């Protein structure tokens, strides 16, 4: 079926996910090159580009990490291609090195970096505010608040980037990436083919003698961009009065509803900022003149607030500025309409209504049983964790990494004691082991190993660290939605012709103590772990078995059998007797009925791990699922 994202006609309106709208905006700008590393909440952007790539007029790649993704597109833009690079906010830290110099060399073909930030840490290890990177690197910054704006700003950012050879930042937040709204399409631009790299060392080779004038040119470019921000349709003034509000990003949506809610629409002056850096100083100065109070509404860091305070001081404008230093708005988490309404009332000197009632009032109920995300039924990570825990128990420190397998933190597996960032399991684990001589087991997934585990492994070999590294190779990038990585056999577009073999990589960097097992074979896995435990130095266990969801959807594996508990199983009680798989494996397919453990045949994936723990569990032929 023809996708409206590639083939939709100008004037058509479609309901699009924020991330799909970004794809359409890029297509309308004439996108030629897309590279990425997936990460929630950005992933639907590259995944959509990948899905449409057979018919799209662009080159697409899943790069091995964010630094590589930005460098690949950095080279492509030097050769004249219009580029989009996508990642989640913490990925920009990985890509920061090329980012801060690409703004010196510039992007002749145009380049936009999508940074999908995550206020509230819905699916991230921190809630850093990447608008600060716009300041640090000297990037124009665009912050959409609706699906339509996500499309329009992506297009504008790419167009402006190409016109000024200025790398640009498209900064979204989780709510924007994952909202859906109507988007009216426009006519795509058709760009000429990339002209190829044009040699110009003074412009493209930042040796110190060239880097100094490059910095000068970068500052001049920021002033050109500022002039564009002053006149941008994404920065608009409305309303009237002595109280003003400046808002950016998704906060503008909350503000619009809050103005309705408080009855203040039209009675206060509003400056919507969508093209937020370089700061349109004249626009903001004119906006502030004559105001008695200004409220700044932005999630996370007081970035605009601090810059506006400095601007007011420089312009000699005296007014009361409210924001988050010290208040009334918080510096952590997401905002919502109620929060913005309260701040608005305070700024406007209106009384606050009594606490908004909800239907349930103050329910005296005890907290409800939680429903945390869990490793799926049949997940091979459960098998690996169960074996490692059986051998090491609490005697080892478990250095974890980023992926589905971080969910191993939950009891009874308890296989995550510390975690820093992508790839840190091996390197941080090495350091932790060295410092006080503790036993450390590091866990890392296949995609994360390719992302930045390899460097840590080389370092561990070189520096003769003492660590057991378990590579949980489930043959895909499971957590973010089964994206391809260099090691996969197959993607949803077909076979991977250039499979990079993890075992060869591990041996190639000098690891000699290596075992490879299928973790669903518990006996072999236990034996391998025991053997590696008896050794010292860098040891690697590769536990290879495809993610069952991926196996079913992409590899076409059909389930042939399911597990069941035999009727005469006296020991299958929830009292801790028998193989006790209820308490050691905690598979989501297990449940307790009338005091006995049972297995839900609809949820059982047929991995047959539990059979190896208890003789009272048997296999029978299952329905093909």
């Amino acid at each position, binding site marked *: 079926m023809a996708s409206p994202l590639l083939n939709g006609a100008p004037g058509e309106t479609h309901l699009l996910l924020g991330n799909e709208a970004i794809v359409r905006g890029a297509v309308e700008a004439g996108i030629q090159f897309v590279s990425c590393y997936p990460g929630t909440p950005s992933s639907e952007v590259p995944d959509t580009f990948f899905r449409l790539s057979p018919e799209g007029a662009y080159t697409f790649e899943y790069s091995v990490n964010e630094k590589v993704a930005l460098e690949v597109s950095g080279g492509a833009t030097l050769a004249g291609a219009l580029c989009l690079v996508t990642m989640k906010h913490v990925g920009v830290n990985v890509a920061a090195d090329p980012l801060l110099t690409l703004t010196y060399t510039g992007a002749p073909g145009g380049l936009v970096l999508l940074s999908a930030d995550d206020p509230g840490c819905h699916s991230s290890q921190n809630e850093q505010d990447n608008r600060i990177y716009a300041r640090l690197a000297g990037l124009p910054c665009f912050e959409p608040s609706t699906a339509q704006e996500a499309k329009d700003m992506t297009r504008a950012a790419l167009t402006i980037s190409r016109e000024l050879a200025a790398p640009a930042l498209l900064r979204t937040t989780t709510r924007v990436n994952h*909202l859906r709204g109507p988007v009216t399409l426009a006519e795509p631009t058709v760009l000429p083919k990339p002209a190829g790299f044009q040699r110009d060392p003074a412009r493209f080779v930042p040796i110190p003698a060239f880097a100094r004038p490059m910095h000068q040119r970068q500052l001049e470019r920021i002033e050109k961009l500022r002039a564009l921000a002053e006149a941008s349709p994404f920065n608009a003034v409305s309303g009237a009065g002595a109280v003003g509000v400046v808002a950016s990003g998704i906060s503008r*949506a909350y503000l619009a509803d809050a103005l309705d809610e408080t009855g203040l629409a039209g009675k206060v002056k509003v400056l919507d900022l969508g093209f937020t850096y370089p700061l349109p100083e004249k626009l903001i100065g004119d906006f502030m003149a004559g105001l008695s109070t200004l409220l700044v509404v932005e999630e996370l860091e007081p970035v605009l607030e601090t810059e506006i305070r400095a601007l007011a001081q420089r312009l000699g404008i005296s007014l009361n500025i409210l924001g988050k230093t010290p208040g009334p708005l918080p510096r952590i988490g997401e905002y919502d309409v109620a929060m913005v309404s309260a701040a608005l009332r305070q700024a406007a000197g209106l009384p606050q209504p009594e606490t908004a009632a909800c239907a349930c*009032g103050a329910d005296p109920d005890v907290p409800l*049983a939680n429903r945390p995300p869990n490793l799926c039924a049949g997940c091979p990570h459960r098998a690996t964790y169960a074996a490692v825990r059986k051998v090491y128990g609490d005697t080892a420190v478990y250095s974890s990494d980023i992926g589905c397998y971080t969910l191993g933190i939950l009891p009874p597996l308890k296989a995550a004691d510390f975690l820093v960032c992508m790839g840190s399991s091996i390197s941080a684990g090495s350091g932790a082991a060295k410092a006080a001589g503790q036993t450390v087991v590091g866990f890392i997934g296949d995609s994360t190993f390719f992302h930045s585990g390899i460097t840590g492994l080389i370092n561990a070999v070189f520096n003769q660290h003492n660590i057991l590294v378990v590579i949980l190779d489930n043959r895909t990038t499971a957590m973010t939605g089964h994206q391809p990585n260099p090691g996969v056999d197959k993607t949803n577009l077909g076979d991977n012709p250039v499979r990079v073999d993890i075992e060869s990589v591990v041996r190639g960097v000098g690891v000699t103590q290596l075992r490879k097992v299928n973790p669903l074979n518990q006996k072999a896995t236990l034996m391998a772990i025991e053997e590696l435990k008896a050794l010292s130095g860098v040891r690697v266990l590769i536990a290879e078995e495809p993610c069952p969801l991926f196996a079913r959807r992409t590899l076409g594996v059909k389930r042939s059998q399911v597990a069941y508990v035999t009727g005469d199983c006296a020991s299958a009680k929830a009292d801790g007797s028998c193989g006790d798989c*209820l308490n050691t494996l905690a598979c989501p397919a297990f449940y307790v009925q009338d005091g006995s453990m049972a297995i839900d045949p609809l949820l059982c994936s047929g991995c047959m791990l539990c059979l190896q723990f208890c003789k009272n569990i048997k296999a029978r032929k299952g329905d093909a699922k």
Partner: protein
Amino acid sequence: MSTKLRIFMTGVGGQGTLTATTLLARAALSVGLPVTSGEIHGMAQRGGVVESTLLIGCKSPKIGPGEADILLGFEPLETLRALPYLKPGGVVLSSSETMPPPSVATGKESAPSVDDIRAKVAAKCGSSCFLPVRSLGVQAGAVQSGNIALLGALCAMGALPFGKEVLANTIRATMKPKVAEINIKALELGAACPA
């Protein structure tokens, strides 16, 4: 359009909560309503809670505590958990069939019974309707279509600014004929539920 409507939806990962949300949003857009919807993904696929929103006449894709006009719960425990989002006098539609979280399924924690949940909900909302969503789905031809039965009941309660024909048209326009047929049957089964 000045009339605002906020619908909060909640369910368990893999139940199709987001499919139902998108269908409802497409239906609203097809009759020209200014619609926004929101969802939180991430770790949802691994059996966690999935929450989504649908708002008409609002800019925000988010619903705060006490703001929802309608609460749609695809699992009763999740209906109860999301009750703080409902405004006083709001409408609740929920599945009456439980999918206990692992801690409850294995007897480590307890959860209120469906009757308890019904009573709590009835005491706190304007009107409510519980229906056997999974069974209706199975009856229609596919367990996943049960969500659409819940949307059918929502239409029948007159809680939406459009009728079930609009949803049926959207189903026909966006799904393969065979799947659409099952979902339209589920829509009808659900629509017959509210007394």
